[in-house]
């Protein structure tokens, strides 16, 4: 059974909840329209379709678009070797979706990381704490509106209080931003 066939099976089972499989570079992506039902789909994929291994969960900040968050699940079946990517969107107001730790235990730390970096909460997670940043850190650093230099904070010792050397430097290429000629500091008039 190929990855596409398993994807079709998932599509037949859940119907409109799941989009048509999209293929790019040999990888199959399925979009799940309702984030609240992700557990049900993952559970079916694990028990019925043999996707016993969760490779990774990651998140994307579609800043300026609605819905703002995309959570991406990478599923793999060790027995058949197929891979599947599930994507689901979460709105900024809600910023919450159910946890899949009940399906795969490895989701625990991946979800903690997403909460830490993006601020998306996972309801039902057994231990939703920050993991890479420290308890009490006030921001979510991987959000697109969080500057590369960090943000000042009233709390002493929390977040950066002055610009990190990377910000605005000649080696920073912002997506869709200025190119290196415009960024070259020697030809730029000082702004501050």
């Amino acid at each position: 059974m190929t990855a596409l066939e398993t994807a079709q099976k998932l599509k037949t089972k859940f119907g409109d909840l799941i989009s048509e499989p999209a293929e790019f570079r040999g990888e199959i992506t399925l979009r799940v329209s309702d984030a609240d039902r992700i557990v049900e789909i993952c559970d079916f994929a694990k028990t019925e379709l043999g996707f016993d291994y969760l490779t990774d969960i990651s998140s994307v900040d579609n800043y300026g678009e609605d819905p703002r968050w995309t959570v991406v699940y990478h599923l793999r079946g060790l027995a058949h070797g197929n891979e599947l990517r599930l994507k689901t969107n979460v709105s900024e107001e809600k910023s919450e979706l159910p946890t899949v730790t009940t399906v795969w235990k490895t989701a625990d730390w991946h979800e903690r990381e997403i909460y830490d970096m993006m601020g998306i909460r996972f309801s039902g997670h057994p231990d939703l704490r920050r993991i890479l940043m420290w308890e009490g850190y006030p921001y979510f650093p991987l959000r697109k509106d969080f500057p590369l230099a960090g943000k000042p904070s009233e709390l002493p010792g929390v977040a950066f209080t002055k610009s990190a050397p990377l910000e605005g430097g000649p080696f920073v290429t912002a997506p869709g931003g200025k190119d290196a000629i415009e960024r070259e500091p020697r030809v730029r008039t000082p702004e501050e």
Partner: protein
Amino acid sequence: MATVQDIEIRDSAARAARATEELQDVQGEKMVLNMGPSHPATHGVLRIVLELDGEVITKADPDVGYLHRGDEKIAENMTYTQFIPYTDRLDYLAPLANNVAYALAVEKLLGIEKDLPPRCQYIRVMCAELARISSHLLGLGAFAMDLGAVTVFLLTFTDREKIYNLAEAISGARFTTSYTRIGGVMRDLPPGWLEQCQKFCDEFIPSLNEVETLLTRNRIWVDRVRNLAVISKEDAIDYGLSGPNLRGSGIEWDLRKKQPYLCYKDLEFDIPVGSVGDCYDRYLVRMEEMRQSVRILEQCIQKIPGGADNKIKEPVNVPDGKIVLPPKQNVMTKMEELIHQFMLVTQGMNCPPGEIYFGHENPKGELGFYINSRGGGTPYRMKIRAPSFVNLSIIPKIFPGCLISDTVAILGSLDFVMGECDR
């Protein structure tokens, strides 16, 4: 007449279980012990909050993130090529393998991974296998040293030194190699490198045999690691372990075999798997993997297109000026090459919009890159799936019931590196 006698194995897991039983009558208070972040056995900056009942661990809570540098945030703000040096610093014990993994991920996004010249593929395989040996040697040396066998550490570091010399010869740097480029490698192998590599292979196997005689049947070593921290097949899959830790639990999963990339399908090698899933199995799997890596290296030396000095000028980069920097002399004399160089340096290569995930069999496990591109020279989002991060998440499961002196053995057998875990 010979007699057969049963000897009770004084394994630490049974010892710990018995100790817990005995201790149940003693109404002792539980003690919380903070191990790390700077503790020699944590190989970096891992902190574990242990709850102890006497000497037996009842709860363990790992605390990671002390080495967090925001690599994923940085990646969003630079071109794909500019990020290569950052990959050196992920698993800093195997920078060459990280370079290969990252380059392959971006090439998958560009759709050129099938067009890589064969010589480049062989060079990259050799880099990845040298990195595997180097990483396993350090993991093994530190593991043994933490349990008191300092000699092993000195032996393995002698061999690592030779690998560093090989890395220096190809990239100019011993540690932070940054050797690969998107679409190829920085430069071809220097003259005489293959002979040096063959010399290393010849010298390495006797040295590994010496380590093997020091440890594999050593009573003290076996007593310390056998039946300790057993990870069942189900747990290993459920917790998403990868690399030698997954194979130590008896699951034959190796990305080099299951999803062959580069020229691995043309090479012969075996995948060692454990049978019990204890620390001893993980140790044995790593020992055998090093032997298999040498096997791969020797085949590569024999089969590499172009041979040692590449007289027939086999290319090492894809012939696409929009991806690989042109030779400098052409930039200086030709218009088109000048434009390509200018565009590549100022804006990076033009990647198509889309998303890919590429997993590479790194020494520590599956190093994966999820790249979400919206077109252009920078990734919109890059997630690094770090094997050490995932492998460490099993600590709360396997630590309880073990003795506190076993923590160093378990941590050594998991073989993690914090630079990759914390990113």
